[in-house]
């Protein structure tokens, strides 16, 4: 049940136009930045940087365009659950697919050492 009461006038939070425009501008800058960086050789960092920018852009859209900044905790938990489950899928599926070619495990519990050394 809802706890907060609403008066006359609009239900829900009205975001000022200036905020929308700022967010929009940030998104455009982000897009330009990703594209520009793709043409610069950062070695192994190209993908992480591109994805970081994408995550920032997503966060902006979710918080402002989708009003999550003004939403209840429940909404946030729901969203986080979605990403958490996606992370489960990626992590555990990769735990097989990306370790198949690892050298066959040594005898007995000595395997923990090479196993751990692959992780770090």
């Amino acid at each position: 049940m809802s706890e907060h009461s609403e008066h006359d006038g609009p239900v829900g939070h009205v975001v000022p136009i200036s905020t929308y425009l700022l967010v929009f501008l940030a998104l455009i800058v982000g897009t330009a930045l990703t594209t520009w960086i793709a043409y610069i050789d950062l070695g192994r960092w190209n993908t992480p940087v591109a994805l970081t920018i994408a995550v920032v852009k997503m966060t902006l859209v979710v918080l402002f365009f989708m009003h999550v900044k003004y939403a209840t905790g429940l909404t946030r938990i729901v969203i986080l659950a979605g990403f958490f489950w996606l992370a489960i899928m990626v992590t555990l599926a990769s735990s097989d697919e990306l370790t198949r070619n690892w050298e066959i495990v040594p005898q007995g519990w000595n395997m923990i050492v090479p196993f751990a050394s692959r992780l770090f």
Partner: protein
Amino acid sequence: MSMAIADLHEAPADSSVNYLNATYGIRSWLLTKDHKRIGLLYLATTTLMFFVGGGAAVLMRLHLIEPQGALFEPETYNKLFSTHGIIMVFFFMVPSIPATLGNFLIPLMIGARDVAFPKLNLLSWYVFVTGCIFALYATLSGGVDTGWTFYPPYSSSFSHTHVVAVALGVFIAGFSSILTGLNFIVTIHKMRAPGMRWFRLPLFIWAMYATSLIFVLGTPVIAITLFLLGLERILHVGIFDPAVGGDPLLFQHLFWFYSHPAVYIMILPGMGVVSELITAFSRKKIFGYSFVAFSSLSIAVISFVVWGHHMFVTGQSVYAGLVFSALSFLVAIPSAVKVFNWTATLYKGSISYEAPMLYALGFVGLFTIGGLTGLFLAALATDVHLNGTYFIVAHFHYVMVGGAVMAYLGGMHFWWPKITGRLYPDYWARFAAFMIFVGFNLTFFPQFVLGYLGMPRRYAVYPAEFQVLNVMSSAGASILGVGYLIPLIYLTWSMRYGPPAGPNPWGAKGLEWTTSSPPPTENFKEIPIVTEDAYNYPTPEVPRV
């Protein structure tokens, strides 16, 4: 079934207007937005699918009486077990308790007029029926022979059967699950009656909430997986094809990401039902309410991280095998907690043995066996030997049939007076419960031994030394089959001829028993205000009102 339901309105249980006789005619049923009527629509559909899938099972067991196969060509046998698996898993077990009992009971139990989105609820049923039609069409027009697991490259490139039609049916039915789960989550969050706090909810609601989580988080993955499989089959290109660097095992990962949790879609609602039954028939508050409630949620979460135990022998990496094995053992613990708490609830109870209670106790026993034999399959070294044999078949039937179907029947018998306003003959109900229990054990216990002896599953013909156990299993299956027909007969009979039930025939607690049987269209004359915990059965200190 639907004919019989349509007849109901001619015999109103009491003089007042209820959801069954509020409006008349087929149209009023097909366009209903009442969660109770939608529950009954699901009941009719899933019952039909159950007997289609069950028919396939009976034919399979008859075929296996002889080592060389008594009845069919191998191809036909393969289609039979595929049909059995696909229909039973996707079109009966998954929607059974959630979509029938869940739909009927959730608003009643939390004190709401309806689910949050009644139109969406009706739409889910139509989506489900569409899925059923695709599956039935494919079955009738030649069938499918991939098994319910659809493993490529067999399903994508080698099978000559109606894979795409069936996969499409499952895909469509998946959306029905998603919409139902979504509806339930929002209903449980937003539609509870005043005073119905989370820790006052009946445990069936907790179980349904956990189930809905799996619906919402798992089903989209099977949808996209089957979508990719269909594309691969139609276009002859795709990501599961090793010829272009793809990986058939990736399909298995994505498939089991849904299909392992799907096992808990089947068993969690059953656990919820049993929590209701055991408390009602022993007149006791549940032992360890919060432990039972949280074990439902933790089962839902853990169920998503154990899927790799289906793949210990498929060429999954040793490392992943170790991770998945460890996680798989985890899921045993909340299940054990539940079993112990149910048993402890009986302590000092006032236990009576009407049919629903017999089903519930049967559930606890069979689920215990089903759960414990799961340990053999979580353990890597024994799984290597048992994977892909009849041991697996026996294990998951103990969980899904001995567990979930027993609970479903128990729940059906428990709430039948509420649903129809009529009582059924208890003698027959107990007889059927007994017969199902015996038939079930005779069917599936020998399969544990068969599996350990090394008989692989999905064999149309088998070496002669396995015959004795197979014949025992087939004999059990015929008892089981008759056992399932008996309730169909007397429950249908009771809809017209059963004595009126009254609002609370069992003396049970819970909001659904405070309204008339059958309930009025909007469930309650006035939205109730909840002031006490669930299962607050009167004790000697507190005189019964």
